[in-house]
């Protein structure tokens, strides 16, 4: 029972910490016109390692926290990150798991799709958005920065979840031959 609660608790803690760090520190970092998205990278790692349900739930929670802290329209980031988490989780459950390039591919594709999705959603909500700034100026450096974050974040998340799901110890030994 403790083990079953430990994983969601760790995921929640990761999402919370990533969201707070994103709204306080990473949103102020502007390199070559782009801003790294720690929440998306963390979500990618969680979803790849724990599947689509974790991905969708963590995405929703992270989006809710980010929108709450930024006083933005509630649900917008949740919708984008829910879909992103679910898709990355499905990729991890099917073909991506145990492939070394999976985190990088997932982060790159998710960053691009989330950016496109955000542009469309904000446009539909009537916000003043510039496709040139979002897609041409900000997106390429954002993808690069997220890829730089991928390796350390994925390593930390994998290590945390490894402790949460220790393989069951062997109870008996059968001699072969």
């Amino acid at each position, binding site marked *: 029972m403790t083990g079953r609660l430990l994983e969601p608790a760790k995921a929640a803690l990761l999402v919370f910490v990533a969201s707070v760090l994103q709204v306080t520190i990473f949103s102020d970092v502007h390199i070559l016109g782009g801003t790294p998205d720690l929440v998306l990278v963390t979500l990618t790692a969680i979803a790849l390692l724990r599947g689509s349900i974790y991905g969708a739930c963590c995405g929703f929670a992270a989006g809710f926290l980010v929108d709450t802290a930024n*006083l933005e329209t509630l649900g917008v980031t949740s919708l984008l990150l829910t879909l992103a988490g679910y898709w990355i989780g499905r990729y991890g459950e099917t073909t991506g798991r145990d492939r070394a390039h999976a985190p990088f591919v997932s982060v790159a594709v998710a960053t691009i799709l989330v950016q496109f999705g955000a542009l469309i959603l904000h446009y539909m909500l009537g916000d003043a958005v510039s496709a040139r700034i979002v897609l041409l100026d900000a997106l390429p450096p954002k993808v690069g920065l997220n890829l730089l974050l991928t390796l350390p974040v994925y390593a930390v998340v994998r290590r945390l979840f490894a402790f949460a799901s220790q393989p069951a110890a062997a109870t008996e030994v059968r001699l072969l031959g």
Partner: protein
Amino acid sequence: MSSRSATALRRRIVAGVLVLLSIVLITIYFREPSGGGLHSVQSAGATVLRPFEVGAQRIARPFQDAYGYLAGLIHAKSQNEELRRQIDQLSQRQIQNSTALRDIGFLKRELHYVSSPEFPKDYRPVTTDVISRPPDEFQQQIVVEAGAAEGIRRDDPVVTPDGLVGKVTEVAHNSAQVTLLTDPSISVSALDFQTGALGMTGHGQGPDTLTLDRVLKSQTLNVGDLVETQSFRFGKLTGIYPEGIVVGTITGASQRDVDLYWQAQIRPRVDFSSLRSVIVLVPKSRGGS
């Protein structure tokens, strides 16, 4: 239902519910007023998150400062170059504006002079810029940006609103050489405006000084009197300078027993060292060429 199908169904239900919940949140948040329930929840949530944000900011502050310092150093060079370029551009623009302002001042004065009663009636003004100045003190000529094409001919008088400058001595199609009043070859018939004493104005001893010569001792000269050009007509011969053009002010006058004439110095009204534009007086009698 197999375990695999149940898991897939559960997965889709969870994702569908969360997507639907997000859309509901967006819809309610977008439609409700700013004091609505969801806004209140968000406000409360932001208040709860605030201490964590402050804590994170305090922890990150030294790193952010270090990052800002390094980023500032990296960008300092390019910013420096950009600012220097802007300074150069602005300086250039300021010089252009100052020059334009000064030109406007000159042109206004010239326009005022040309339309005033002081301007000689029998002449047509050709206002032109000075394009070349004397390279040393031995040459007392300037070159103006108007020539035969504007109807200018040799010996045409040249003035400014301040007074007489000299006369045209060489003419090209689009330029002309003007010999200044300070050149030894130039003499102008002049009179003391206050006393009516007649004489000849020519170059003086020092730079930018003139003398008034050939004034009989029987006539009167006073320091401070204004000296103007005096026209004359002798048969078919006429003076090349129109009457009433200011030459300068008498700064000193003396007479000795052995001299026949007064010795008088004149300070010219025109500053010959800073001429920028002049007016060439073209006689109307010459026609429109």
